[in-house]
C-alpha cells in the first residue's frame, strides 16, 4: 500500500498544499460573478476534484489557483506562500494535449525546462524525460512528432511535460474529456498510478461524476451563477481504485449523493 493510501486510511490530517480562502472573481466590472467566496484546502498527497455543470466557474477557479488569473477577493496560498502568478511548483494539464507540432515528443516534454533554464539544461534532463515516457508507456516515441501520436498518447506526453519539473501539485483541467470513454477510463487509472507513485497532490476539474468519484479523496460539488462550492464529499473507497469499483454499492451511493447535490445546485 502506498504512503498515500496509508495517510488516508490512518485518518491523519496531513500538511495542506493549497489553502484557498474566500476567493471570488468578478467579470465585466462586477456584473458577472464567476466565483463567490470559494474556500477549500488540499492536503498534501490527496486527490481532489471539482465537479459542476459548464459555466459554474470551475475553470476560473483553476486559473486562479494556477496564478494565471488574479482573484477579485480572497487569498490563495500554496505551500504557505501566496500565489501571485504562475509558479514552477505547479504542474498543469489542459483539455487538449497542446503539444507543439514542430517539436518531437521528448522536446515537447522538455519545453518547461528549456523555457525556464535554457536549452542546455533541457538537454541535460533528457534522460529523465525518457524515464517519464517509459513511466507512461511511451518508450520508443521520443523522436516522434505529435502528428504521429494518437489522442491518448498525446495526453500521456502532456502528463510527462507536467511532471518533468517535479511540481508540488498537479492542476488538471478536464484532461481526458476529449478522449473516447474506453481510453479515458484507462488514462484515469494511469493518472492514479502516476500520482500514487509520486505521492502527488492533485486537483482535477471534471464534469464526469464517475471520473470524480473514481479518482478522488474529496469531491467539491459546485453550483453555477454564482460559482460556489455547495458541498465537499469525501470518498472513502480504498486505493488503488479499480474500474470494478464502479459497480460497488458505496460507489453508487457517492455518485448518487453528488448527482443530487448537482441537481439541487442547478435549480437554485
Amino acid at each position: 500500500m502506498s504512503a498515500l493510501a496509508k495517510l488516508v486510511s490512518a485518518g491523519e490530517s496531513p500538511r495542506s498544499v493549497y489553502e484557498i480562502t474566500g476567493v471570488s472573481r468578478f467579470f465585466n466590472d462586477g456584473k458577472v460573478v464567476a466565483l463567490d467566496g470559494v474556500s477549500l484546502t488540499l492536503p498534501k498527497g490527496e486527490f481532489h476534484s471539482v465537479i459542476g455543470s459548464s459555466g459554474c466557474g470551475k475553470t476560473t477557479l483553476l486559473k486562479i489557483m494556477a496564478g494565471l488569473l488574479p482573484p477579485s477577493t480572497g487569498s490563495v496560498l500554496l505551500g504557505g506562500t501566496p500565489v501571485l502568478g504562475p509558479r514552477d511548483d505547479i504542474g498543469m494539464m489542459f483539455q487538449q494535449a497542446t503539444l507543439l507540432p514542430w517539436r518531437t515528443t521528448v522536446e515537447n516534454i522538455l519545453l518547461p525546462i528549456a523555457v525556464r533554464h535554457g536549452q542546455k539544461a533541457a538537454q541535460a534532463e533528457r534522460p529523465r524525460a525518457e524515464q517519464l515516457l517509459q513511466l507512461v508507456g511511451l518508450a520508443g516515441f521520443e523522436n516522434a512528432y505529435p502528428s504521429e501520436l494518437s489522442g491518448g498518447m498525446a495526453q500521456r506526453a502532456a502528463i510527462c511535460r507536467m511532471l518533468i519539473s517535479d511540481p508540488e501539485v498537479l492542476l488538471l483541467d478536464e484532461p481526458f474529456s476529449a478522449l473516447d470513454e474506453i481510453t479515458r477510463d484507462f488514462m484515469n487509472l494511469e493518472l492514479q498510478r502516476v500520482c500514487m507513485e509520486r505521492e502527488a497532490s492533485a486537483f482535477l476539474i471534471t464534469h464526469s461524476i464517475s471520473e470524480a468519484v473514481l479518482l478522488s479523496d474529496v469531491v467539491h460539488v459546485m453550483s453555477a451563477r454564482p460559482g460556489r462550492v455547495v458541498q465537499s464529499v469525501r470518498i472513502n473507497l480504498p486505493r488503488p481504485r479499480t474500474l470494478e469499483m464502479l459497480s460497488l454499492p458505496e460507489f453508487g451511493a457517492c455518485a448518487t449523493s453528488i448527482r443530487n447535490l448537482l441537481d439541487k445546485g442547478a435549480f437554485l
Partner: protein
Amino acid sequence: MTDQVYLSAETAGITDTVWVETKSWSARVPRWVSMTVLMALFLLGWQTLSVSGLVSPLILPTLSDTLADLEFVGRSLVSGSYMLTAFWVTASEVLVGFAIAVAVGVSLGVLVGETTFGERAVMPYIVAIDTMPKIAFAPLFVSWLGFGIGSKVALAAFISVFPIVVGTAAGLHAASANERMLFQSIRASRLQTLVMLKIPSGLPQFFTGLKIASISVVGGAVAGELLGGGKGFGELIRAAAAQLDTPRVFSLIIYLSLLGVLMFGLVSWMQYKFVFWDRSSTTRSTPQ
C-alpha cells in the same frame, strides 16, 4: 443446418448485393492527360481563329507566328543579347523589391501583430493604404526616384509588402489560447513566447502572404517599367506593342511569367522545407 451460425448470402436464399461505384470518365483519366487535352483544344481553337481571317493578325497573331517568335526570343535570351540584359534588369528589380518587401513587411507585421500600439494605431493606416490603387503611385515613384531601376524597385516592393504584413500579423495571432496558457504557466518571457511559440505557429500564414507577394512583386516591377520606362522587359513589351508586333508581346509575356513561376516555386519550396509539420497548404497555389 440448424447449428450453423454464419449463413452465407447464397444459402440464405439471397444473392450478393455487390455493386460497382460509378466513377466519372474524367476522374479516371490521369491529370496530365486532361491538362494536355485542354491545352491542345486551346491551341487548336487559337490557330483556327487566327487563320480563319475573322480576326486581324494585329489583334491575334497565328499560333505558328507566336511559336516562331517564342523560339527567336528564347535563342536571343540564351545567346545573351540585349534581351538577356533586359531580363536581368527586371529580375534584379523583382529580387531587390522582394527583399525590401520582406524586410519592411516582416518588421511592420511584427509591430502590428505583437504590440497593442501597432494593432490599434498602425493597422488601420496599413489597411487604408492597402485599399488604395497602389499602381497609381507609379508616377510619384518616378518623380521621386527617377527613370532608373529605383522607381521600379519601389513600386514592386510597395505592391508586394501588404500581403507580407497581413500574413505576418495574422500568423502571430495563430497560436491557440491553450498554447498561450501553457507558455504563461511555464513562465515564458514575451521574447520566448514570440520565438518558441508565436513565430513557428505563424509560419503557415506568413508563407501564404509571402506566396501572394512573390507573384505581385513581378507585376509591380513590370508595371513600373511600362509606366516609367527603363531598360527592363516591360520596356521591350511596350516597344513591341507600339510597333504592333503582337507575337513579340505574347512571347515576352510568356518568358516574363517564368520569373513569377520561379519566385512562387522558390517560396513554396521554402515553405515545404521549413513548415514540415503543416504541409496542407504547400501543394495548393495561393490559398485563400
